[in-house]
């Protein structure tokens, strides 16, 4: 039995009080301690990613599993049960990478209550690792809820002018969604007497699948977010400090996509397949809704937030396209999309923080001549936008392409989805035209990011380029997952 996954969860949990104390000793000590601990977690996560890549677990099986009895009562038990496969390992890796980058980015952008901030950051990271590696529904739910608490404080304490409203809206939406999800889990238990994901997958009678599918999908739809459950997201994103928006979009939304794949499809496959068209349509609607709403935004950050809704729609669309057509590219593409979206949108959100920090505003019409006044920022902005648009050489192109192909093999009607990347490219290019290519306000000097900041942004973007060449590091381990999900749904 390996303890890597436990370390992945508990190193951040233990790091939380440590960095708190380190920051009490001094800001620099705190930053170095946080960076070092985040790097340790990244090493562990890389190991997990590598392990899954080098020997992908066969269909319906998991690697690095750990199991211990946690709670026992009469003849029911809740196990501390962990494991990873090709669905969770990319998300674990990207969580660790983004956390390290957020530690770096927060250095400049967070200027008060640092000890609490970094302590909560690690609490968040540990909980996310728990969500992605739990194989027991109750354990999953416990980690799922722990995630809410740091995020509530992040938005409410370090956020913008309407932070309190946004924080309350965030916690009420997501808590309501997740309690309904828990109800679904309890219903499953009453019927099948198990909380273990590997035991349940493919073994829940069809008649017991409908209600829990509905209940858990509401929980995941709030997180993803799926229109019409999305209204908390623009508020949360606009008010959250930029480094936190990176985690919100890069990691927290992935919990929704992960939940749909692992639980809605994995545990309730037949009901999912029966209603696949509904989910497919909702995903498609989210894609269009996010893209069209993004056009209208004046705030750069809000535009990126709606892009997130648009991109996460692809995940749902791809996943359910596979259920309808049997084309595995859908689920593989969905997993790939979650990974690339995390990095591309992460870079964009962090950039909005830098733009706000240096230009004092995020209003697109007010940002003029970035190409002249902030050449480095402008370059990174153009590159990150290209990644978000799905332009080669960034692998987001491949992810969206795979999802759309799967969609078309489900039905030719869904070929309209090809319009979404077009609209996305349209509003990003328009934004670039207005901000980067416009003439600067007379008298504005140069106030740009440092070279080391540019280096940090390269860390977001380079993996995206590499992955277009070496897409197999994600797609190979994702294949058994996709085959398994298609198999149980058939």
């Amino acid at each position, binding site marked *: 039995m390996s303890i890597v996954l436990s370390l992945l969860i508990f190193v951040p949990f233990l790091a939380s009080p440590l960095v708190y104390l380190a920051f009490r000793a001094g800001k620099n000590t705190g930053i170095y301690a946080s960076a070092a601990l985040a790097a340790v977690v990244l090493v562990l996560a890389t190991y997990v990613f590598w392990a899954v890549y080098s020997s992908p677990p066969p269909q319906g099986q998991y690697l690095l599993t750990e199991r211990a009895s946690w*709670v026992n009562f009469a003849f029911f038990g809740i196990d501390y049960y962990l494991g990873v496969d090709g669905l969770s390992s990319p998300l674990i890796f990207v969580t660790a990478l983004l956390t390290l980058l957020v530690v770096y980015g927060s250095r400049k952008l967070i200027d008060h209550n640092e000890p609490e901030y970094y302590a909560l950051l690690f609490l968040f990271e540990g909980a996310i690792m728990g969500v992605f590696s739990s194989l027991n529904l109750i354990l999953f739910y416990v980690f799922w809820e722990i995630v809410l608490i740091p995020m509530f404080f992040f938005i409410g304490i370090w956020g913008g002018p309407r932070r309190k409203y946004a924080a309350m809206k965030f916690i009420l939406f997501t808590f309501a969604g997740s*309690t309904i999800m828990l109800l679904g889990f309890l219903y499953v238990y009453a019927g099948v007497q198990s909380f273990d994901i590997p035991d349940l997958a493919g073994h829940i009678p069809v008649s017991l699948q409908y209600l829990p599918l509905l209940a858990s999908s509401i929980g995941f739809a709030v997180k993803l977010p799926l229109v019409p459950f999305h209204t908390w997201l623009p508020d949360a994103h606009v008010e959250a400090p930029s480094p936190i928006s990176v985690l919100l979009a890069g990691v927290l939304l992935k919990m929704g996509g992960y939940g749909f794949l692992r639980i809605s499809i994995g545990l309730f496959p037949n009901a999912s397949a029966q209603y696949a068209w509904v989910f497919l349509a909702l995903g498609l609607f989210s894609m269009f809704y996010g893209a069209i709403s993004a056009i209208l935004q004046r705030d750069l950050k809000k535009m990126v937030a709606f892009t997130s809704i648009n991109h996460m729609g692809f995940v749902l669309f791809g996943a359910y396209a596979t259920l309808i057509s049997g084309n595995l590219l859908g689920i593989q593409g969905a997993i790939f999309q979650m990974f690339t979206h995390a990095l591309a949108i992460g870079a964009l959100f962090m950039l909005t923080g830098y733009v706000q920090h240096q230009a004092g505003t995020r209003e697109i019409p007010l940002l003029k001549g970035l190409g002249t006044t902030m050449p480095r920022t402008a370059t990174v902005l153009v590159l990150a936008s290209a990644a978000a648009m799905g332009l080669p050489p960034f692998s987001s192109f491949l992810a969206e392409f795979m999802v759309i192909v799967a969609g078309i093999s489900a039905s030719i009607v869904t070929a309209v989805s090809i319009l979404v990347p077009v609209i996305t490219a349209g509003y990003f290019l328009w934004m670039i035209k207005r901000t980067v290519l416009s003439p600067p306000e007379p008298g504005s000097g140069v106030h740009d990011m440092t070279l080391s900041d540019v280096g940090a942004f390269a860390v977001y973007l380079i993996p995206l380029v590499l992955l277009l060449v070496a897409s197999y590091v994600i797609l190979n381990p994702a294949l058994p997952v996709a085959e398994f999900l298609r198999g149980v749904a058939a």
Partner: protein
Amino acid sequence: MSDYLAASIVLLAGTSLALPLLQLVKVKERNLPGYLLAVALAIAMALVSLNTLSPSVSPWFGSLLASDQLGGVFALVTLGVTLMVTVASFETRKRLSNSVYYGLLSFTALGMLLLSYSQDLLMLFVAWELMSLPTYVLAGFDKTETSNEASVKYAVIGAMSSAIILYAISLAYGLTGSTQISTVVEGFVSNQNALTGVAALLFVAGFGFKMSIVPFHMWIPDVYEGAPPTISALLAAATKKAGFIAAIRVLLALTTLFVITHNPLFTMANVFAVLALITMTVGNVAALTQRSMTRLLAYSSIAQAGYILVGFVPFASNPASLAASIGMTGAIMQVVNHAIMKGAAFLAAALVLTQLKRGDLGAYDGLAKRMPVTAFTLAVCFLALAGVPPLNGFWSKLFLFLSVVYGQYGWLAVAGILNSAFSLGYYAWLVKRMYMDEGESTERVKEPTWFVIVFAVAVGLIIGIGIFPQQLINFASGAVPNIFG
């Protein structure tokens, strides 16, 4: 054969009688009575724990007391809360009359201890009064207008509930010729008629006043607000639990009873289900609109009573089922957890009221900067009360809701879960006020050491039970078989 239980009863009785006498002696240390009571309570708790490990019944008690684990759970909870209140009172009760105050606390503790183990209706009634009468005085201990009002209101309502219980007992005796609970139950079930249903409903009403079940809850917010805040903690976290042990001993034994003869709609299970639904909903909705912290906590405590009742439903519908044992385990866990969460929350509110001289919610704006330990304790208690994992409240709710999903009362689980989500509306809103809003000042306010110790223990228990719930589950489930009598 060791008589731990008898020893703890004698100890508390002795303390109760001795403490008021200390007023006649001149002592320098004003907190001496408090210290003595705290030590006595700690010893009593140790004795009760020993008794729970190796139960023994003293021949003195005859058939009056049942020395079982069920009683042990409730005795430990109620004595533990009294100990918390006593320690917190070291700071708020530094007056000369404090020996009387602690004496009364001691009497209440003795009453709750006896009530936890009572298995005879008369013993139960005597213990009930022994517990209640001192709290009427304690509620009015501040002698302010609101405190007096609370005391009178509480005494009148308390007298009414006692009268109702007494009437139910007289019916029970008349119908079965016994006051022994097990005999009464046998008689009731074997010979059901209209009067047995009336007696059962009278028991529900009488105990319901203490359990704070809607519609018997009207007095709660006024009394909790008017009474000295440490006493509100005692009422919400301890004497309320005493109502539940009485209900478990008497009512749950009557489960198979039809309230109206042989009408399948009017079973005890349905009575409990409806009461649970109304109680949690009314509590949560009313809590949302409160302007004062003690009132808000009072309504939240009503809502929590509704959750406990949820666990009674599967038991009342089929006592032999797995759902019943999950539900009762959940209910007993919730009793323990609620005592810790609500006790600590009320004491934190008491501290804020003492230090800031304000009890309205405005006093809590920006509290995290002024009283960080208190604010943190409150935040943890609130999240636990809302059922957020990994805190203790999550586990009891998980058991409670699982039991009704299992026991064919799925709609009650839906209502309960939606109530939990709804309740976070005011709990998270309070956390927001403490941590995100600006207060009238950011000056640090003193947080006395005794309070900090109580808070640390409570927060430690809330998080500790949340992460490692197994011990509590074993403890609670071990008490369930005792319900069958």
